[in-house]
């Protein structure tokens, strides 16, 4: 039996970028410290390979013409990525921490998202913006945001969030090939996580959610690292005799409600686990749609396992208190499966 090839999430992303760049000379990378040591000696160049090491080794293969270290100028380089995408390239820009969107929201919200529409469809912006999210590393409030709901909220943008190395590589590859601007959400706490990743290029399509575990008693929809928490919760629930179905949203916009609704019709119970701020979240959006389109199938009101309306604290114990986790999911699920179905 051929053993599976195991890569880290970081290595999988690196491979996705490398393959895309080999196949298409129009793919370029822009961002801060994508190599590091720019302008230095050969031993200094590629000192970092990205703040999280995702782009290490790429400058050696593709050169500084295509792996472009930028000054700390998000408005300039994100805006330039938009302009380059409008004029024949397929740039992948690295925002590094999603929190930095605060510095360049115009370029994403008013330019990338709107220029196609306002030009009557003449302009095409095949841009990918990578950004890392997630709490759990004591990075504190300004470096632990998720805020992907902000991007889902804006028409004209697509948003994806892989939780496994396999999905990371395939979804990144698909995002780069997509003709629309895609915000590619990487969870920083997952960079060292491991999983099977095939060689060669393959796509994980945008617009499709995935059933990661089948079950019949309750549906748990989760985003990014919360998928792993949901899977852990599912194991714990199995011990108590309940079978949970776990759905990895994967594509936040476009959102695959078909897969979610089919599961809810089967189980009658839905929990949505979302690490993003609770108000106006993707969890809220899913809950509203399920309520409107599967009301008769629900045996219990839709529950959201989400952080409080607060910021990510620095203190590690407080941070764990803040975050959704498998225990909180189990507690919520037990409360739902043991209550009487509404009929």
């Amino acid at each position, binding site marked *: 039996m051929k053993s599976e090839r195991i890569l880290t999430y970081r290595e999988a992303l690196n491979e996705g970028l490398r393959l895309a760049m080999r196949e298409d000379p129009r793919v370029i990378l822009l961002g801060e410290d994508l190599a590091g040591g720019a302008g230095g000696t050969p031993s200094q160049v590629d000192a970092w390979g990205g703040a999280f090491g995702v782009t290490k080794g790429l400058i050696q293969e593709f050169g500084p013409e295509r792996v472009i270290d930028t000054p700390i100028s998000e408005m300039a380089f994100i*805006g*330039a990525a938009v*302009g380059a995408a*409008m004029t024949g*390239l397929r740039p992948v820009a690295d925002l590094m921490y999603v929190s930095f969107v605060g510095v360049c929201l115009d370029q994403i919200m*008013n330019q990338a998202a709107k220029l196609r529409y306002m*030009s*009557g469809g003449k302009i095409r912006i095949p841009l990918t913006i990578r950004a890392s999210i997630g709490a759990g590393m004591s990075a504190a409030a300004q470096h632990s945001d998720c805020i992907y709901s902000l991007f889902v909220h804006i028409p004209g943008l697509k948003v994806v969030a892989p939780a496994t190395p396999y999905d990371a590589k395939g979804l990144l590859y698909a995002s780069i090939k997509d003709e629309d601007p895609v915000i590619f959400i990487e969870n920083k706490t997952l960079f060292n996580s491991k999983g099977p990743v095939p060689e060669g290029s393959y796509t994980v399509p945008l617009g499709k959610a995935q059933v990661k575990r089948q079950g019949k008693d309750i549906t748990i929809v989760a985003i990014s690292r919360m998928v792993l928490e949901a899977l852990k919760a599912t194991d714990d629930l199995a011990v108590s005799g309940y079978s949970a179905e776990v759905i990895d949203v994967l594509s936040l916009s*476009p959102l695959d409600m078909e897969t979610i609704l089919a599961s809810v019709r089967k189980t009658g119970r839905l929990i949505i686990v979302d690490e993003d701020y609770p108000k106006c979240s993707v969890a809220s959006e899913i809950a509203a749609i399920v309520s409107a389109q599967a009301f008769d199938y629900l045996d219990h009101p839709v529950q959201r396992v989400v952080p409080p309306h607060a910021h990510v604290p620095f203190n590690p114990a407080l941070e764990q208190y803040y975050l959704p986790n498998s225990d909180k999911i189990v507690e919520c699920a037990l409360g739902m499966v043991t209550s009487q179905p509404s009929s």
Partner: protein
Amino acid sequence: MSNRYSSEQLKWIYEKLTLIREFEERIYRDYLNNKLPGFVHLYAGEEAVAVGVCALLRKSDYITSTHRGHGHCIAKGVDPKHMMAELYGKATGTCKGKGGSMHIADIDCGMLGANGIVVAGLPLACGAALSAKVRKTDQVAAAFFGDGSSNSGAFHESLNFAAVLKLPVIFVLENNGYADATPIRYAAAIENLSERARGYGIPGVTVDGMDVFSVMEATEEAVARARNGNGPSLVECKTYRYYGHFVGDAGLYRSKEEVEEKKKEDCILRYEKRVLAEKWLSQQELREIQRQSLESIEEAVRFAEDGPDPELKECLEDVYVSY
């Protein structure tokens, strides 16, 4: 000065100057007669800058623009008929009626769009220039922006970014003395904004933006520099807008006398004087071009008025390529 410009070029310049002036004057009247929805920001008075710069650009070069973009559009070759239809919000507009005055774009002419966000065009122009560099063409990108923009963050980021990556950009600063209702003498601590170029290690020059030839001379040098791979330049053109920030703006922040004084420096009158004095063009040739420009605008208005409104389903189209 010897005549370095061909008769064809000189006629082109006059055609564009008069087309823009007629377009803007006509919109001014039609807007006040409630024929146009939304807002318009008129370029009348500033024509020498758009025309002087675009005279040195090829069709395949790129420009980005501002909310005051009609002049840049016409100078770059966007069809005034479709522009007028866009202002009327018609389906036959440059943007199918979905963008309006501040967002007219025509990729085929290299016009990456008028833009409603101050200074937004500069990073976009850097991107277009970067694209040309990566694709190894010798295309250049010109970014038009105002004195107000040059105080905003993305101006500073863009100049440094273009300098560091040696991008083929021409930063064209149209200093018309006012940003909305606030004079630049209040909003900036220096007199000649081109001095800012030095802080980013790029060449900067201030020219008389009411003189087409001065604009052309500075642009020619900047374009050559960019095309030869020697990076960006800042060209500050001191100019003046005859109308308010938008049509309807009473313009109380400046005196009527100031406006009248500036009109004495009018770029079209000066151009006429120069080409006639040098005998580069004749009075007859000028009159013929002016007549044609007037007719083009008349035709544009008829085209706009006759055009259909977009279908309701257009509201949902073009948000994405596919979703």
